[in-house]
């Protein structure tokens, strides 16, 4: 009996699924597709971005560019193997007007490929892969977050300014890590420093002990790393436990300490990082954003929430200029390209490759916050290498 009901339930579910998507097409709403991770390692980031995006939309009375928004969400699981299929769910099945996503760079690149092929308007609210606003740049692809190069380039200058001559870098061997290290190295060596060794380990391996031993043997002036999430927590703890915190200073791009400070505990305190957002930015838009966010979701916002919020702001500007009509692409893109986005991170504009030209902050971990120390580089623009637009 069980099997019969199961079979009928599958077929029914399928029918209902098809029917509901076709019925919805009749209404005249702005169809926004959110493709973000809601399960797996980056689930917390996906939720924060969604919250930020929806906060802006709700502040607008549920509208973007004057049109009521209907959301379509797909959990991309941060799984590149399913990326193309997942984005097709939004583009081909749900026929969304706008695509928003995602966290994982590999998945975002698969999304960008589909967006280019189908000429769907797309905003990247996190993934920092340099290619998205480099070789893969396109008139219909925008980014409200950062490029991997940006935050670590700033750190390269900071480390050199602190009179460190030699640095060992360590990261996972994947695009985000590699590009961060490249950005750091570019700035650091331009200022006269030397990266003596680039260590890598496969993503998402977290057995760091052999590398710590090697770092201790190399005795560089400083260490630069790129890690995020669980790996970041473990690395920082291991680094401290190996006694290296007292002998060799540790620097990183800000993802090391975002959303991870609580888990790091004592080991995370005092870490110096660079990022395009920090706790304690004193501008009106940040204060109102933080207040509204905390009220709506009962948690403090983080950099990911800001990026989601700004993605919605960016779209609102473009759509408003086009009278809410996604097909008036020229006006829409023009407005987005020239927009001044009043972001909680500070007002920013977009580069010709559609990446934020933004201030990068120097931050220091205190308690559960990445406290603003200073503006490291003002209005830093990604070089957008390989972009032919």
């Amino acid at each position, binding site marked *: 009996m069980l*099997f019969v009901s199961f079979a009928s339930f599958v077929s029914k579910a399928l029918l209902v699924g*098809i029917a509901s998507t076709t019925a919805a097409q009749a209404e005249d709403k702005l169809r926004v597709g959110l493709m973000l991770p809601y399960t797996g390692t980056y689930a917390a980031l996906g939720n924060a971005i969604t919250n930020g995006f929806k906060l802006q939309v709700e502040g607008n009375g549920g509208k973007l560019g004057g049109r009521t928004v209907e959301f379509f969400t797909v959990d991309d699981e941060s799984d*590149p193997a399913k990326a*193309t299929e997942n984005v*097709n*769910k939004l583009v081909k*099945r749900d026929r969304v007007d706008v695509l928003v996503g995602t966290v994982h760079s*590999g998945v975002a690149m698969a999304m960008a*490929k589909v967006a280019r092929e189908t000429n769907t308007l797309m905003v990247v609210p996190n993934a920092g892969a340099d290619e998205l606003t480099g070789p893969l740049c396109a008139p219909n692809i925008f980014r409200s977050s950062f490029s991997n190069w940006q935050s670590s380039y700033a750190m390269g200058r900071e480390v050199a300014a602190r009179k460190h001559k030699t640095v060992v870098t360590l990261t996972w061997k994947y695009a985000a890590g590699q590009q961060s290290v490249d950005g750091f190295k570019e700035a650091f060596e331009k200022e006269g420093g030397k990266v003596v060794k680039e260590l890598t380990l*496969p993503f998402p391996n977290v057995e760091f002990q052999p590398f710590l031993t090697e770092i201790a043997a190399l005795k560089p002036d400083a260490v630069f790393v790129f890690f995020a999430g669980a790996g970041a927590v473990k690395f920082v703890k291991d680094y401290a436990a190996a006694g290296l915190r007292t002998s060799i200073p540790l620097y990183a791009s800000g993802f090391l300490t975002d959303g991870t400070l609580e888990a790091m505990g004592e080991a995370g305190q005092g870490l110096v990082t660079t990022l395009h957002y920090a706790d304690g930015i004193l501008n009106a838009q940040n204060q109102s954003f933080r207040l509204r966010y905390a009220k709506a979701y009962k948690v403090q916002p983080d950099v990911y929430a800001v990026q989601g919020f700004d993605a919605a702001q960016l779209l609102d500007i473009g759509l408003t200029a086009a009278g809410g009509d996604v097909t008036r692409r020229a006006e829409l893109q023009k407005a987005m390209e020239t927009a001044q986005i009043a972001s909680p991170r500070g007002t920013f504009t977009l580069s010709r490759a559609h990446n934020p030209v933004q201030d990068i902050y120097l931050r220091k971990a205190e308690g559960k916050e990445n406290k603003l120390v200073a503006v490291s580089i003002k209005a830093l623009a990604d070089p957008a290498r390989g972009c032919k637009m």
Partner: protein
Amino acid sequence: MKFRASSVALFVAVAAVIVFPFTDSAFYTELLAKAMILAIFALSLDLLVGYTGLVSFGHAAYFGIGAYATVLLAPKYDPASLWVVLPGAVVAAGLAALIIGLFVLRTRGIYFIMVTLAFAQMVYYVFHDTAIGGGSDGIYLNFKPSAALGAFRPFDLEQARQQCWFVTAALLITWWFLARLLRSPFGRAIVGIRSNEQRMRALGFATVRYKLAAFTIAGAIAGLAGSLYAILFGFVTPELLSWHQSGNVLLMVILGGIGSFAGSVGGAFAFVAMQEVFSGWTRHWQLLMGGVIVAAVLFLPGGLAALPGRLKRAFGADRG
């Protein structure tokens, strides 16, 4: 009676699959193509699990090698020839299966399961850690391969419909090939090995060689599926080789009922449908998926293929 009912069912199913792309739903056409590709993949594993008695838990490796071979054989800035990349992928995957088979077939039982898994992980790390295929970030197929033979263009894979039909043809040919293979002397021998390997050896069959051949053929067909997958989605990552994929395809085969090609195809379709439906319902859809798997093992031995018989018995419709 049974024969006629099942061939009518098959005919209706094939007709439905051929007609479906006319519904003009690009997404569901693609989903259908994906389900059929996974069906090819599941068929290849069923040859091992269901007919040769080799429970491979690393079958995704050959699927992935087929996919990578397709992308790596294609030029970067021009469409590749389908007649190069497809056979190339099949040969590459078959060759890999042959080499790995030499190792894994030295073991049996639980060992075999674990060793196939471990070798698949090894292949996974080859693509994940080295620069061969873009590392953990994956690699793109920029253009769909061209089916042109000189001036003659039999079909165009850029057209979603034609692509779906091409996959349909591939599935039917694979199915036919495997059904035919089972009736061949070789096929009888591997079925004999599954049922009683010791006896086969005593009769004079070099059983390891037969198993190796079956392992290679299954790997090659998995490579075909992987190649089609790469062509369909244009993007290949190491995750295609991960042990979750090996688990999923095993699930399709068992869900459908091992030792039944129709079951494997049905299992693949059921798997895709479940994934689609569950993930539409809830973010925690994997919980449902896990629940279904556990329930299927406990309450549905023999899989979907055994369902008609079980139902008949339960309702007593066909007694005597």
